[in-house]
């Protein structure tokens, strides 16, 4: 039987959600117009006043918010409440530029915990469960976000945070957590470390994993489910919107339900900004309609995905978004062909390789070159040079026929690519260093 954390909202009739969204959007637009100078200026420049926004159908009239806007107004320029009402700050890692700071009021903290709690309950969690949180605790939203959610559900929380893999293994074995929250790449690393310690999934009590904070493929899901003996659920979020819990997966595992009583989702054409219909792929855009401290509107996530309103067998009426294929920032353009690292990952896993890989893009004599380095499994597929050469060629052929890129494949020994404690670094683009 399906369990819900907030059944009334999660399964509400479409019209009821829409009514709620209309009220909340109108109030938010009015508030940011009055309190956030950037929104006031942008709306005036676009010739839009809060009175022009009568329902969510008018959302498209509002200007977009870009990551650069958040950098330009650093640190507190986008806050819509005085700092005395802000009880928590989080910040993005700043790996792709200057860091950005976001704030939460007491109510924002409650909303955030509720959103993530929906994910834990959808993954089968209850007060009977023990939740092992391997996301980093601190300025990163992952750790504290899932921590608060676990507390909401009434589960027993183990705030392990990231790092110290050996200790994580001991805790997984001894404390017997039933739900693991981490990045998918770190979960895979934990599975490897478990095997290395001579133990297996039979020594663990895990039943579910809630993985997010980086793009991952369904093939990686199958690997994690097999290695850890769990059902693996996706969770989506970004610091700018609230952190994890913007959308979460149910047991159907066919996309994530967007918590659209708090966040409106649109899919747009990244080039023209035009809103695209359901089931059409484009850039994902979010608007916060309940956030008090940091309510951003029409935020360009640069994630590529699509939404669908087909009824979900789980009973939730919340719109579903597909697993994002990757950020537009992550998209590689190799000799004019667009490729997401996640597509390369899919090919690798389909061909029986591990999800431990590295994509090295370089340019020599004005031609792009791609090296895909991938670790082979513990069972050597052939013990002759000819046999292994054939393996490399077969993978190169698969990449060429499926993705249209000519990559050079290099097989690596297991455990040679550095494991990330948080978000995995899969791509080394040396062309960027040249430019």
């Amino acid at each position, binding site marked *: 039987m399906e369990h819900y954390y907030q059944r009334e909202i999660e399964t509400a009739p479409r019209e009821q959600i829409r009514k709620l969204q209309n009220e909340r959007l109108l109030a938010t637009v009015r508030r940011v117009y009055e309190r956030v100078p950037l929104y006031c200026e942008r709306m005036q420049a676009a010739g839009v006043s809060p009175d022009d926004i009568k329902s969510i159908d008018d959302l498209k009239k509002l200007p977009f918010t870009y990551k650069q806007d958040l950098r330009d107004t650093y640190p507190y320029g986008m806050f819509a409440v005085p700092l005395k009402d802000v009880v928590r700050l989080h910040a993005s890692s700043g790996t792709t530029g200057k860091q950005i700071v976001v704030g939460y009021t007491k109510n924002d903290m409650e909303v955030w915990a509720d959103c993530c709690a929906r994910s834990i309950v959808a993954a089968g969690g209850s007060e009977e469960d023990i939740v092992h949180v391997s996301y980093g605790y601190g300025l990163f939203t992952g750790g504290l976000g899932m921590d608060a959610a676990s507390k909401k559900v009434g589960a027993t929380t183990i705030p392990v945070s990231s790092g110290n893999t050996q200790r994580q293994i001991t805790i997984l074995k001894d404390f017997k957590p039933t739900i693991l929250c981490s990045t998918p790449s770190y979960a895979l690393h934990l599975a490897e470390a478990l095997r*290395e310690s001579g133990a297996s999934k039979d020594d663990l009590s895990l039943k579910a994993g809630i993985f997010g904070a980086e793009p991952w493929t369904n093939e990686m899901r199958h690997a994690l489910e097999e290695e850890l003996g769990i059902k693996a659920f996706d969770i989506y979020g970004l610091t700018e919107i609230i952190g994890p819990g913007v959308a979460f997966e149910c047991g159907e595992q066919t996309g994530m339900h967007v918590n659209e009583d708090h966040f409106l989702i649109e899919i747009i054409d990244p080039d023209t900004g035009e809103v695209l219909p359901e089931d059409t792929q484009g850039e994902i855009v979010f608007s916060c309609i309940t956030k008090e401290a940091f309510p951003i509107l029409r935020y360009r996530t640069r994630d590529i995905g699509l939404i669908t309103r087909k009824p979900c067998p789980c009973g939730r009426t919340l719109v579903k978004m597909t697993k994002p294929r990757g950020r537009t920032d992550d998209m590689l353009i190799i000799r004019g062909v667009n490729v997401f690292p996640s597509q390369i990952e899919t090919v690798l896993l389909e061909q029986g390789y591990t999800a431990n890989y590295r994509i090295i893009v370089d340019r020599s004599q004005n031609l792009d070159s791609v090296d895909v380095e991938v670790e*082979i*499994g513990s069972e050597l597929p052939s*013990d*002759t040079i000819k046999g292994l050469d054939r393996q490399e060629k077969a993978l190169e052929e698969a990449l060429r026929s499926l993705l249209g890129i000519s990559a050079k494949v290099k097989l*690596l*020994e297991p455990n040679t690519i550095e494991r990330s404690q948080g978000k995995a670094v899969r791509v080394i683009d040396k062309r960027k260093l040249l430019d």
Partner: protein
Amino acid sequence: MIQQLSVFLQNEPGKLAAITTALAEGGIDLRALSIADTTDFGILRMLVSDAAKARAILEQKRYSASVTAVTIAAVPDVPGGLAGVLTMLANEGVNIEYMYSLIGRGEDKAYMVFRATDGSKLLAALAKHGIATISNEELGIR
């Protein structure tokens, strides 16, 4: 048939030292060894005192390895001895994937490790021409 252990190694300094140390720590004795290499990687092939145990040690140390069946033939230790055997195998249609020698055992025989595409065809050819093969027991392999 003899169980041979094959290990994938990246072509980098210290790799061979690390793996032989790991096996030594596990009390594994080496009976024979050969390396095939390219610029990027190599395949280390070994006959060890306990292939299953060595395989387990390597698995734990995160190496990619496999166990393959090979044949050891006693080849006459005279000029042309090996050439004669190889000519015979070629005539019999046995395709050799790789071979290497085992360091000095018999009085008048040299021992060669063979891996053929078709192992039973190799054994039949050797038997037909009266060339002895060596068993696990004779090599002290479990």
